């Protein structure tokens, strides 16, 4: 089981990382979503004890570890909030830049091509 959980978490993380590297901003958001799933499944996987759901402990019997579940709840909610924000951000960027491709985002103030040699010449003044 340990191995299975770790493997699935790794697949989620790897696929999420792969998506983060993509040029499409939508896929970047999807990558973050996958990585957040990875984190949550790992939290659940780090339960220390197995048993029935941790309700009404006075009945006795082994209970599943409730603490990671509480953590997972919190992490889920935070993940949802950040994803929604990221989505809105991407939306805003797409509107402002007119593209959903990350590589095509350019600062308005930065020339597309940097010419270090030319810059070096112009800046040489203070050093020579």
């Amino acid at each position, binding site marked *: 089981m340990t191995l299975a959980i770790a493997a699935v978490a790794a697949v989620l993380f790897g696929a999420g990382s792969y998506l983060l590297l993509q040029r499409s901003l939508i896929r970047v958001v999807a990558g*973050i979503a996958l990585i957040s799933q990875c984190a949550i499944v790992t*939290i659940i996987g780090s339960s220390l004890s197995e048993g029935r759901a941790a309700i009404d402990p006075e009945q006795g019997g082994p209970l599943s570890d409730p603490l990671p579940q509480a953590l997972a709840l919190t992490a889920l909610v935070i993940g949802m909030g950040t994803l929604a*924000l990221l989505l809105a951000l*991407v939306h805003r*960027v797409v509107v402002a830049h007119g593209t959903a491709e990350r590589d095509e*985002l350019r600062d308005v103030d930065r020339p597309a091509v940097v010419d270090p040699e030319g810059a070096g010449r112009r800046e040489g003044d*203070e050093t020579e």
Partner: protein
Amino acid sequence: MTALSLALLVPWAAGLALVVLDGRRRAVGWVAVATLVATLAVLAVLAAAVLRRGAVEYVTGGWPAGVGIVLRADALGVTFALLSVFVVLVAAAAEAVVGVRERTFPGLLVLLAAGLNGLFLTGDVFNFYVFFEMSMIAAYVLTAYGAQRAQLRAAVIFASVNLLGSFIFLLAVAGTYRVTGTLAMSDVAVRIAEVPASAAVAVAVGFFVAFSVKLGLFPFHYWLPTVYANTRPAVAAVLSGAVANIGAYGLLRFGAGIFTDQLRFSATVLIALGGASIIYGGVLAVARRRPAEMLAYSAIGQVGYVLVAVGVGGPAGLAAAVLYSVVNALNKALLFLTTAVRGPLVAGAFVVGALSVAGVPPAVGFVGKLAVFRTAVDARSPTLVALLVLGSALSLLYLFLIYQREFWAEDDEEVSADADDARGEHTRSVSLRAIAVALALVLLVGGAWPEPLAALSAAAADSVATEADGATR
């Protein structure tokens, strides 16, 4: 206990209230400033108590530690909380005087401060994560402040990289619980010693990567130049002067306080990475033409010193790391603010900041340099000393190249003025200039009378050492 709770409550409650009001009203901006001043006052009271009587600690709900969340204010946390709230306050005031342009800005700043306070004052690993997210999500929105194309692009990069860092952190938190069965930092510190090396190191690596990303340490720094250089100056000041503190604090708290053995195990790696940061940031800053971009690379270089100091460790090393973090945050806050305004006094303020970064008296930076040198000498490493000298030389070169171009050579001024206008125009606001000058004075006073800072950082280092000692006992 009351001060500790109030330090959380004041900015939290005020932030929640402010965020739904229209922050463009002058009154709202100033209420935010007032809130931060109040928070700072509470923190000062708390700091006084901590320094006099040792760490203040209690568990939420009055439950046993671990069942409830441990809130703990020790010298380290209080130092960083004071520093970060101060920087946020400066940024809030800087925006308030020129007129806030977005409804939510003041509220978000205050909530950011609340999140930072929380994470510096919590003694619980997962609670740290929650506050961490709280401040980060506010920071993501703030990065987009201005909503020009450059800022939006910066925000996307900032958010995607740092979210990745956050989730790596969360994975490490899950691992911490798995291998120790607890979340209270002090218990984790005790139990981690019995954990087999492979698992403990794996968890430690997760924490290290998460904090390095936050700090913008080489080679995790690639997001940083774009972000710092394209956000508005006040936001850049907050990011580099307050949010980046999370990374430094995390390295100290988790590295030196909890994962003591793992830190010692990987000290060489830390020092090597720190050294690489110093060189890389310094070299890249040299040819930058825009002050904000130069500052971004400078920030990469400067955190290298913190990492080197943490890597060398020991009371002197940790104190140096704290001291340097504080000084660096103040420097960066000042310098980023000066990119927003022009005027002769601003040139003076920039010089003070530049001297401070380069470690030249009379600005406070030399105290940090002194402390770092002491750690290098303690480590008996000529290489390290040479590295620090080289780093100083680089910082002096790039800072004064920019200074001369920005403030001396009138013929070149349009070049950078154009570029900076893209992040929001240069203002000549007198009040903003006054803030820059006031901050510069703080740096000068710190240099003239370094004892409070030195004592605070020594106490902070002491508190980390106590935590680590408690673990070995």
